[in-house]
């Protein structure tokens, strides 16, 4: 089914319990379906006892989170985000992040259109609009190292999920057994004016300028509310620093005043040659179908993809409940002129049939980086 229209993708990073309650609240106002991915958020914790005396710095602690995504129309975007903030208490530091991203819905099975949620009455508070996201796909075990950049610089709290990488592995025949396919996907939402510096640091810390180390890209965010509480422990002051920052953001009408230089991580000293004007092509389909479809996309010149497991939840009342809850999401960074070829290849491989229930959309990627070979 051809659509090719703009839609809004709402993303929530929240603790498992909060996410579960939010889903029920969203369904009560007419959300037909959503996708969830299990993940973890990483936080800093002051070491105690002997470790503190030894000055071994801060340790990382993990909190299980659920990442919820769903598509809505742009008319209801702000209302839905405000509803989520209110119901989930996401304005309280430490509870979670919610943001929206503009996407172009290309083709989708008829049961996988955007959610048609009726308008609701809710107080529309001003949301942060100068935000941007960083997504980094690295080897399994590297997520904490990369995520720590966000925590140590106060940029944001990383959300880490797992995925399977394809691309390089499929080009080396049976030698692929020596290259682990498991990837960690680090998502960090921060202010738009700091995002490039944080990205540079992540490239440096994760040695992403080395062959096969990973892929990193920026994505624009339209509006949202970001969790900034990067540590575990109660504040000894009447208000925590995150609460103060949130209030100043509201007074200043944005987060631009937070623009600053980071000195802890010196830049690698190399001029980074970014890949520009790409798109993040997303395919969501029934579990078990992604591998074949990605192979078809790669035959149509896509360089690789990251596949993650997704839990689909359709409300009982809607037609969308016919779709299997076990789904997969595949993300490919391609150039805009490849979209047509990839879509055609996917369609010919049955991406929209009754066994796949495919949904294809893309969003802009203004900057990306990976090792591209010696210039």
């Amino acid at each position, binding site marked *: 089914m051809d659509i090719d229209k703009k839609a809004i993708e709402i993303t929530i990073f929240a*603790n498992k319990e909060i996410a579960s309650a939010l889903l029920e609240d969203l369904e009560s106002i007419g959300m037909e379906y959503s996708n969830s991915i299990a993940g*973890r958020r990483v936080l800093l914790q002051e070491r105690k006892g002997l470790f503190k005396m030894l000055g071994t710095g801060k340790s990382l*602690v993990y*909190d*299980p989170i659920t990442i919820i995504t769903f598509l809505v129309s742009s008319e209801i975007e702000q209302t839905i985000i405000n509803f989520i903030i209110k119901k989930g208490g996401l304005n309280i*530091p430490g509870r979670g992040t919610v943001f929206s991203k503009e996407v172009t819905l290309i083709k989708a099975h008829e049961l996988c259109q955007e959610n048609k949620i009726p308008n609701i009455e809710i107080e529309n508070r001003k949301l942060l609009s100068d935000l941007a996201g960083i997504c980094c796909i690295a080897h399994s075990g590297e997520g904490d190292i990369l995520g720590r950049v966000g925590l140590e610089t106060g940029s944001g709290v990383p959300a*880490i999920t*797992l995925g399977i990488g394809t691309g390089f592995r499929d080009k080396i025949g049976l030698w692929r057994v020596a290259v682990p396919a498991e990837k960690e996907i680090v998502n960090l939402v921060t202010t738009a004016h700091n995002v490039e510096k944080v990205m540079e640091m992540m490239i440096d810390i994760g040695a992403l300028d080395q062959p096969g180390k990973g892929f990193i890209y920026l994505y624009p965010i339209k509006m949202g509310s970001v969790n900034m*509480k990067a540590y575990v*422990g109660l504040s000894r002051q009447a208000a925590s620093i995150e609460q103060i920052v949130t209030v100043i953001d509201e007074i200043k009408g944005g987060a631009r005043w937070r623009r600053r230089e980071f000195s802890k991580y010196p830049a690698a000293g190399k001029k980074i040659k970014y890949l520009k004007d790409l798109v993040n092509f997303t395919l969501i389909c029934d579990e078990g179908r992604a591998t074949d479809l990605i192979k078809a996309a790669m035959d149509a010149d896509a360089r690789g993809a990251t596949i993650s497991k997704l839990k689909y939840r359709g409300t009982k009342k809607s037609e969308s409940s016919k779709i299997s809850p076990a789904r997969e999401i595949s993300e490919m960074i391609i150039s805009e002129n490849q979209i047509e070829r990839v879509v055609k290849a996917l369609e010919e491989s049955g991406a929209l049939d009754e066994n796949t229930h495919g949904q294809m959309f893309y969003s802009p990627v203004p900057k990306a980086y990976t090792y591209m070979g010696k210039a």
Partner: protein
Amino acid sequence: MIGYALQNAQANSQIALFDGSQEKMLEFIGKLKKDPILRKSVFGKEDIELLKNWAVQKGIESQRLAIFCEPNALKEALKNYSNVKNIKTSPVDVLLRNGKAAVQAIIPLTIFFFLVLFLVLRDKLPRPDEIILGIILAVVGMGLFNVGIELGLSKLGNSVGSNVPSSFTKISLINERQTIINFNEDIVQTAIKPNGEKEKFFYANIKNEYVPIPFVQSAYDASNKQYIYTPTKGPLLGEEKGILGFFVVLLFAFIMGYGATLAEPALNALGLKVEELTVGTFEKSLLIQAVASGVGIGMLLGVVKIIWNVPLAYLLIPPYLLLLIITKISTEEFVNIAWDSAGVTTGPITVPLVLAVGLGIGNQVNVVEGFGMLSLASVCPILAVLTVGLYVNKKRKAMRQENA
């Protein structure tokens, strides 16, 4: 198990495996004499010479008679076999046997999966070359792994397990037992202790050294004029049944259980899966440490059971009751992982080691058998993982309350 007991355990422990009936044991030995396949399963080879050699070197009088049938044949055998050392199994035989076992274990299962995939699910293999390579590596790996366990780890476990009680008591070195032929009671002498108690002993020339050996009447077979000499060792640490010796044995049991579990491939696989399913929030290392500590404590309790002959029920019922309570108050996530951890502790490294050590210690402290340790090594990891789960949940709850 019977093969292990026949070759390493004392007669009373061997009889325990036949419901305490000596007749049943002798009947089994009669079957061993007739049935080459049974001999292969017990001694690793069909060769009847192995059985005869075992009877002369390690068998008791009734076992020997069951094999040689009449005293004259036995006398002749004693001459022929008494200086023959244990016949060693060839490494090639071990390799072939374990290779065959690996094929028998993996190939039928693989065929079953293929049949289900192709005929029932009507699907195809996602990456056939990778999967076939994986199956080949699994067969080769399992074969080599079993050889390694049989030739290395299991023998080391036997050796350490049967010797470790020497830290607190005097033990008999059954594997070094020797039969002295043409023994004459005239060479037996008498010694006296400071308290006036008398002891009999004789001198033997062992490896060109004159060694005084205590004379035990029950080890002397007057009709065949032979004396079975079993060397002894210990107590190595302090006095007989001293606290230090017991402490060393208990510490050894804990470290052995802990170490064997760290090396357990099944636990590593479970840890990886748990880490994947919880997206790293339950780290593999945390699970492995919790399970390994649990197995260590289980092993320690198992050794307590053997040394002090504590009934297994006294050691099993309290932890299971405690488990039921902790299961009730724990979250589903940890309950499932914890109870599944019990299964992986009984893996291919832990089981032979635990049994070898259990039987080894059991033999030396005259306990009928050393079973029951595995059950304790299974229950304690569940307790350990559930306890860690309660701690992690408490931390998470505190984190949530901070942001409420």
